[in-house]
């Protein structure tokens, strides 16, 4: 194991005894049974032509539930149980212009792809966005490069004109290119949005962490008509939570916008519906809402019949 950037450690996994490793292709990942008992998916970084080892890179996630931390505490020689490689992010073999696009630790499957493209002599671009210079992993490999690899690294602390900008990148991508992307959800969402205006681009992505649920949105205000109470609903909270904070316990069950228990009449204000219960017709009518998940449009004041 080697620290390859701030908070990122690479692990070389070799089989125990003389068991053979299953072959893999660039873009594949394996399940790793971490010492903390969690199962985590890590992309294989090494060249797919290698048969004697798997290399993975793990970023320490302070907000995680201990899986990455327990990996970082491992010592050389530790035994790990891993699953067989699976690939949901295959590199297509043809002559289309190829762009590899990474955000942070999302670089891992793309390094494996870069190995293959270099070996095949296929020119490609690699764009890599990181928070700071000390977060650049696989720097040696990227510096060494090779004929045909055009590599751009963007750091959040660079001057503005050098920073990663999904819009300008999307505009510069070659016609009909295939883009392989991996990184944090926010990064991938921004790129996907920017590429929406480029139907000629074939965008392929691998998601690692669970995409964040469409969480609470911007702040608005609720006002309870029968109680004469008005409270702001902050960006991080639901109406339900806010009312609970005021000592009001509305009738609820699922808290997921599916059961209809918390259905509330809305006397005024613009609703941002997020439930699975009301029909599209009900949503348009705008006179009832499910206060466990739905919100007010930013800046609006929702007057509830409560």
């Amino acid at each position, binding site marked *: 194991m080697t620290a390859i950037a701030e908070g990122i450690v690479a692990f070389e996994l070799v089989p125990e005894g003389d068991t053979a490793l299953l072959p893999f292709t660039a873009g594949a990942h394996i399940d790793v*049974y971490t010492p903390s008992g969690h*199962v985590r998916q890590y992309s294989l970084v090494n060249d797919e032509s290698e048969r004697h080892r798997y290399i993975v890179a793990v970023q320490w996630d302070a907000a995680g539930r201990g899986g990455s931390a327990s990996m970082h505490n491992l010592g050389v020689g530790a035994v790990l149980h891993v*699953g*067989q490689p699976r690939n*949901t992010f295959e590199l297509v073999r043809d002559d289309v212009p190829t762009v590899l696009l990474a955000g942070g630790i999302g670089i891992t499957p793309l390094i494996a792809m870069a190995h293959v493209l270099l070996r095949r002599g296929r020119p490609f671009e690699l764009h890599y966005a990181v928070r700071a210079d000390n977060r650049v992993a696989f720097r040696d490999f990227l510096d060494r490069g090779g004929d045909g690899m055009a590599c751009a690294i963007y750091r959040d602390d660079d001057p503005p004109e050098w920073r990663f900008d999904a819009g300008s990148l999307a505009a510069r991508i070659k016609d009909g290119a295939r883009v392989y992307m991996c990184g944090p959800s926010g990064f991938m969402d921004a790129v996907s949005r920017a590429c929406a205006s480029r139907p000629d681009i074939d965008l392929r992505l691998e998601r690692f962490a*669970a995409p964040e649920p469409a969480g609470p949105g911007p702040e608005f205000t609720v006002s309870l008509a029968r109680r004469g109470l008005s409270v702001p609903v902050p960006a991080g909270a639901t109406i339900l939570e806010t009312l609970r904070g005021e000592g009001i316990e509305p009738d609820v069950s*699922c808290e*997921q916008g599916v059961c209809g228990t918390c259905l509330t009449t809305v006397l005024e204000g613009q609703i941002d519906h997020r439930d699975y219960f009301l029909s599209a017709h009900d949503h348009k009518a705008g006179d009832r809402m499910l206060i466990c998940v739905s919100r007010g449009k930013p800046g609006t004041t929702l007057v509830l019949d409560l």
Partner: protein
Amino acid sequence: MDDLKLITALDDAPSPEAITGFRTGMMPFWHPVLEASALECGGPTGVRLLGRNLVLARLDGEIVVFPDVCRHFQARLSLGTLVQVNGEQALQCPYHGWAFGTGGRCVRIPQLAPGRKIPMTANLTSYRAVERYGIIWVCLADEATFPIPDFPEMGDTSFRKVRLRETKPMRTSSTRMIMGTLDDTHFPWVHEGILGDRNKPEPPNHKVWRQDNELVVQYEVEQPPGLMTTDMSRPDAQRAGPVRILYTDHVGMPNVIRLVKDTDAGRYVIWLATSPVDYNTTINFWIFARNYDLNPASDAAYEAMSAHVRLQDKPIIESQRPWLIPPFWTRVELPMGPGDLPLMEYQKWIEELGIATAI
């Protein structure tokens, strides 16, 4: 209230809309229909899938699936035999001997007048079939929405596998069957002593997300020591206390589920593929995999334990009405957060896939 009338009018039989919604919604997926060993001698064998009768056979090694009715006068092809026509295997109807080859092509009509050709219209519809995990899977649509879900432990030789074939189909829908297997808040109630403890009914903290074609649920929980949590071949096993488990449930939408239980002993996997015979009948294919206590002599104990747990669930899941999971707007069911989160997320997805449409 209209809603209320709807609910009180509800009896055992789903509405025609609900049944159609289920059958058509389930169509574009791969469904397990038969143990591959059943076709070892070529067949033919009849199965029922989504309310249709199908005939399966292996013609020169290739699995074929046709509607189980002859194009001629509607006799059952599954009563027929395999024959050779022009050096190739074909399925011959028992009634007048019409024979059908791969792709459903009619290759022989014994009554054909000399000089006449077999009409194109004599061909049968042919569905797609593949063999995976020792089971034959059929897709009734031109294109499957999702591939057959992964089952990595199946191809991993460090795991011992036990198959369980229920002798009778379950009287439930395959969506209810999947939900019943995904549901963990019933463990302390239905499987007390094996999977839970009634004195600790609190639901675990679920993490739930969608990943590719799967719904993934992850949580940690404590369960009593037993075959699914402890290496019982170890001498000190009998003295073991409650075991900490990490569950990772993968629901291959909408009909396959793989429950992965990771403990200090190793990994125990419960895999279930459901075959939607129809809206109220389901055939279950179970495979259990473990990477500890690998002695083949132990298999029987694991099989017996699994069968026991299945039997605890059976009457309860079969008792659920309506047969088909009702859409949320009907208010027929009252899911409760946060414990029911995994079930609600499954249900959201099958609504989006157009499988749960009415009651």
